[in-house]
């Protein structure tokens, strides 16, 4: 099947404006601005069943419809902060199929009445931002961005904004704080950004992959998109496959593809032909799926099915863990990450991640007692439901499921 998002794999040089145009590029945006009302655009996206690809899976069209039309101006922010360990899809889109992404930003902006959009890239994507700046300039030159587009009363500017190395800025309200020139710390919600967002104005924040779907949904219709994937999860998804597999990488597949097909058909199987021990389907923020029965690999990867395994699909950053890996080592790694990235605003997360990482380190280095494992589990469970944003909550996922589902790995390294 031809790619919908990673189209550069089928069409060489699609990152050149002429080539993108020749392949139908910008028709959807032009058609929207010249022939459709903004709410009609939102309706098509709503009917397509598109859900946010950043991890939360919130219905995109519904989010757009939440924009507060009594308060102006409006903004669109594209979330290109991509920092979840195991996620590396948005970078490939922006580097190789940039115009489709930018056209998606433009269509979203028209749909919600925004005349300015920001692409928030993680600071490490310095080169990607410079590249996007070139592409934005080319679009301005060609009349796809700027004033009175297509002879209509609609103007749009797109700007890039670089972060500077803070995972938390992927959380949408922290991202808005960061664009405002502040420390990236999440806001208390509600109000949500479609009501009170950037500079206190209604704002829609969407992930890069989500927006990249939009031009083709508009061009081909909601029904075309809905036919792919499953009833619960429409369309295609880029699965970032990493960890102990032979061929890690991005694979664009319909929702509902099984773990087995991803890992064995596309990923070439596990390194050194080891067995899969655990899967983290949503990066470091995942619950650990225990693969103690080979049949688990036949689970379809869609939001609802993955939930039956006691985990979430999230951003579909599938980290494969084999039998050579001990889970006490693994959660020590994830805890080190969350402790480093906790923004420090809420006490639960700031203190919780600090103490959890102390305990995981002690256990992993062989200085832990059996009671430490219970203490760790206790701290993690106490944090749940009490953090200001998802970071704190997610930091407990691998810890709780790691201990509950792989207790033997801990018992082996602690003193009686």
């Amino acid at each position, binding site marked *: 099947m031809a790619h919908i998002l990673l189209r550069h794999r089928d069409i060489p040089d699609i990152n050149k404006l002429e080539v993108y145009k020749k392949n139908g590029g910008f028709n959807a945006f032009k058609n929207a601005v010249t022939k459709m009302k903004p709410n009609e655009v939102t309706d098509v996206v709503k009917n397509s069943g598109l859900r946010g690809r950043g991890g939360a899976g919130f219905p995109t069209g519904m989010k757009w419809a939440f924009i507060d039309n009594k308060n102006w101006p409006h903004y669109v922010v594209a979330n290109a902060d991509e920092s979840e360990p195991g996620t590396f899809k948005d970078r490939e889109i922006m580097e190789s199929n940039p115009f489709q992404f930018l056209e998606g930003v433009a269509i979203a902006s028209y749909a919600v009445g925004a005349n300015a959009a920001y692409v928030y890239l993680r600071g490490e994507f*310095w*080169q990607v931002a410079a590249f996007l700046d070139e592409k934005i300039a080319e679009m301005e030159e060609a009349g796809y961005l700027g004033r009175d587009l297509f002879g209509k009363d609609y103007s749009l500017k797109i700007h890039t904004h670089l972060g*500077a190395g803070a995972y938390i800025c992927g959380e949408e309200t922290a991202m808005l704080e960061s664009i*405002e020139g502040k420390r990236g710390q999440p806001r208390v919600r509600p109000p949500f950004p479609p009501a009170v967002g950037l500079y206190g104005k209604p704002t829609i924040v969407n992930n890069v992959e989500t927006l990249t779907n939009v031009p083709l949904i508009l061009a081909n219709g909601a029904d075309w998109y809905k036919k792919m994937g499953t009833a619960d999860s429409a369309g295609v998804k880029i699965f970032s496959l990493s960890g102990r597999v032979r061929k890690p990488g991005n694979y664009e597949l319909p929702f509902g593809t099984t773990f087995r097909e991803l890992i064995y058909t596309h990923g070439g199987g596990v390194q050194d032909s080891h067995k899969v021990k655990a899967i983290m389907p949503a990066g470091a923020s995942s619950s650990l799926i225990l693969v103690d029965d080979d049949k688990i690999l036949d689970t379809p990867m869609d939001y609802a099915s993955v939930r039956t395994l006691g985990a979430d699909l999230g951003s579909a950053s599938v980290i494969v863990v084999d039998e050579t890996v001990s889970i006490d080592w693994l959660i020590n790694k994830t805890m080190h990450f969350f402790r480093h990235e906790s923004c420090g605003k809420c006490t639960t997360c700031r203190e919780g991640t600090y103490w959890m990482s102390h305990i995981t380190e002690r256990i992993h280095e062989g200085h832990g007692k059996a009671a430490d494992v219970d203490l760790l589990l206790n701290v993690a469970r106490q944090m749940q439901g009490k953090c200001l944003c998802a970071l704190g909550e997610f930091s407990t996922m691998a810890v709780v499921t790691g201990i509950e589902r792989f207790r033997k790995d801990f018992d082996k390294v602690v003193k009686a």
Partner: protein
Amino acid sequence: MSLANKYPKEVKQILSKYPPEHKRSAVMPLLYLAQREEGYLNKAAMQDIAKMLEITETDVAAIVGFYTLYHDEKAGKYRMQVCTDLPCALRGADQFMESLCSNLGIKVGETTEDGLITLEGVMCLAACDKAPMFQTQGPDGIKYHENMTVDKTMELIAALKKSTGEAK
């Protein structure tokens, strides 16, 4: 010399991105600009930006302290930032880092004697399928180096050393 005098074109372009009543938004790009030459930010640079944006020096220092890509201390000309997070570690990043340390004769966080390289361990850089990998942060911005080996890294360091020598 103030940033606005030194880089008038860049400063104007950065300020034009944000609504004039929200010029505080320009603090992050301005900090990158101020950090460009020396690789770190001193007090005078932060004061200059605070004045330009009509915010306090503390506001600026809070940004520098919060975000890991801003530095308030001098380091090597290039910061070599190796990802040792979970997905990279599953593909040998910790061993890569260890060999790199022994080849360079420094520990993580230290700088080579010639002042060229500071070796750092960092969190996920969104290149998990191309481990071991690192980024270099230096006068020419941030660059990714993927699917690396120790040999390839030592070649890169030699090339950086050569180009630095020539620039002098």
